[in-house]
């Protein structure tokens, strides 16, 4: 059988591999076959993304979490619209005002409106979170894919390196990266991304090992598909569910870590509002004005909780088998390690 050159699809393609869930990880590039050939009577092994969504909608906690997250994201994206001009404006007459109609969350020691600062902080926290997880997702997934697919020496070299990173205490590793690169939002994202890369690599590798020897992979190899094609069209889509779950849980961790690092004075720098920084500033006034530290902390808690709940919901829908293995949200670093050590011991 001769193989047509790309971009055309190979003459025969495993229906199983083609009708996989259109997860966000699946690379674009629609195949013309999708419309031209009716799906075979085989039921897809996993729900497609519409089904995933509808299943999620039937999970009340996950649905509520998604809605709240969506709200937070909208507020963060349009922060200029929602935040009043008082966010970075110092006003001596308005200092340390308790919550009121005018200032629902009160004002801080410089008279700045805390609600506005919490809103601006949302965009900082989420940006750092998404950047960090984006970095870990891309780098970690790539490493995991290569290690899992090629095995042997590639696997050894890549995963030993990942283990080395993993053995560092997470907070210290992030602090060390920030010490090297200097404080700031971008470097915070990089630091958190580096901390979480090994976890994505492990999750991806484990998942790839699970599908590497499936019939549809062997079939496409036998018709001469390239490694790249097999990896992107067959292995990645089928290995994606645990990675998606991990992404949601990692976002929770990243938001928490950004807050912790900013709290220590290593992350976002003043006068930019970041939830962790506001907590650190409010700490000194805790007995005088509780609202300074309370509301930013509440914001962190709510965001992290929603990402964790969404992650749990996604896991139930996408990957029921993993339920026992990967408990734990923000501290999933430890939990994932436990799952691993449990396997090795």
């Amino acid at each position, binding site marked *: 059988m001769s193989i047509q050159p790309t971009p055309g699809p190979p003459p025969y393609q495993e229906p199983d591999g083609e009708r996989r869930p259109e997860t966000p990880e699946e690379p674009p590039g629609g195949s013309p076959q999708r419309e031209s050939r009716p799906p075979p009577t085989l039921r897809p092994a996993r729900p497609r993304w519409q089904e995933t969504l509808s299943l999620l909608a039937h999970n009340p906690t996950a649905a509520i979490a998604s809605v709240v997250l969506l709200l937070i994201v909208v507020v963060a994206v349009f922060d200029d619209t929602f935040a009043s001009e008082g966010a970075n404006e110092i006003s001596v007459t308005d200092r340390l005002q308790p919550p009121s109609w005018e200032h629902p969350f009160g004002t801080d020691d410089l008279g700045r409106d805390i609600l506005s600062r919490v809103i601006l902080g949302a965009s900082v926290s989420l940006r750092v979170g998404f950047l960090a997880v984006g970095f870990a997702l891309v780098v970690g997934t790539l490493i995991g894919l290569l290690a899992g697919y090629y095995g042997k020496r590639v696997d050894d070299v890549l995963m030993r390196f990942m283990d080395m990173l993993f053995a560092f205490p997470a907070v210290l590793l992030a602090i060390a990266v920030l010490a090297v690169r200097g404080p700031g939002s971008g470097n915070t994202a990089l630091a958190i991304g580096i901390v979480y890369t090994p976890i994505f690599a492990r999750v991806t590798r484990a998942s790839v090992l699970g599908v590497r020897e499936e019939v549809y992979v062997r079939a496409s190899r036998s018709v001469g598909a390239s490694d790249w094609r097999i990896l992107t069209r067959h292995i990645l889509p089928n290995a994606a569910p645990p990675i998606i779950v991990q992404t949601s849980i990692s976002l929770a961790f990243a938001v*928490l870590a950004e*807050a912790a690092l900013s709290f220590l004075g290593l992350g976002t720098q003043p006068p930019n509002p970041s939830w962790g920084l506001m907590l650190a500033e409010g700490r000194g006034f*805790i007995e005088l004005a509780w609202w300074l530290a309370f509301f930013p902390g509440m914001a962190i808690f709510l965001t992290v909780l929603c990402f964790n709940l969404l992650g749990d919901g996604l896991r139930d829908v996408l990957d029921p088998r993993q339920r026992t293995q990967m408990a*734990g949200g923000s501290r999933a670093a430890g939990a994932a390690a436990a799952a691993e*050590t449990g396997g090795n011991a």
Partner: protein
Amino acid sequence: MFGLVHLVPGDPVRLALGTRFSQESYDALRERSGLDQPLVEQFFGWFGRALTGDLGVSFRSGETVTSQIAERLPATLTLAFASILVALLIAVPLGTVSALRPRSLVDRVATVISQFGISVPDFWMGIVLILVFAGTLGWLPSGGYVPLTEDPGAWLQRLLMPALVTGVVSGSVITRFVRSSVLEALGADHVRTAQAKGLGTRQVFTWHVLRNALLPLVTVTGVQLAYLLSGVVVVEIVFSWPGLGQLALQAVQARDYPVLQGAILLFALVFLVINLVVDLLYSAIDPRIRR
């Protein structure tokens, strides 16, 4: 690890000397601390001395690194073990109860509690506790550390809040593991056999379920303990707890290479020792592994 520490920019000698110093004193200190040698030589020198228990001298305070670590160790050990105790006291009953009655009200409440503990920022919880118990109620001091040998009452008072904060966080993670491993053990064939041959519920539970559920529990507890011994910097800061995390943070800020290297070496050792202990416990619990 050594390389990473030296990547930290900033000249430690300059920081140690302050703003006014002569070129001679700069060179002298640089030579004394061995920073004028090539990095590779510095590494092997440090490694050789570390093997004999000599971790060098802090650039900042001039004390030996071992004495600085030894000074901080009791506080860190106290907090870590107290937190693990709190965590297990929360996790084992909560996880077991919710596994025994899955999807019941108890299970739902337990899930909510553990979800809360996993998501709450520990430093914020610390601040809120300080506000309530130290501020409004005035029952407990807001922070600090008193050695047990000096004043047991004061020791306990100061330990309660930080241990509760870190314990709740670790406990929430452990709860989920306990729940899932008990659930799994409950569904195993040998449990059904034990029930079928007419053993009492209590007997089945202690000998057939709990023992099998213990393995994952030991693993997570080990991981959590390693985390507590190395990484509770933020909680230490909130409660002015003079632990190793604070020491490491200060070392990073002051470019105090010897202290930072010493601390990281210690964390790596802790990690190894805990893994070893976990493995030993494994074979003690599960005779199948011994073979």
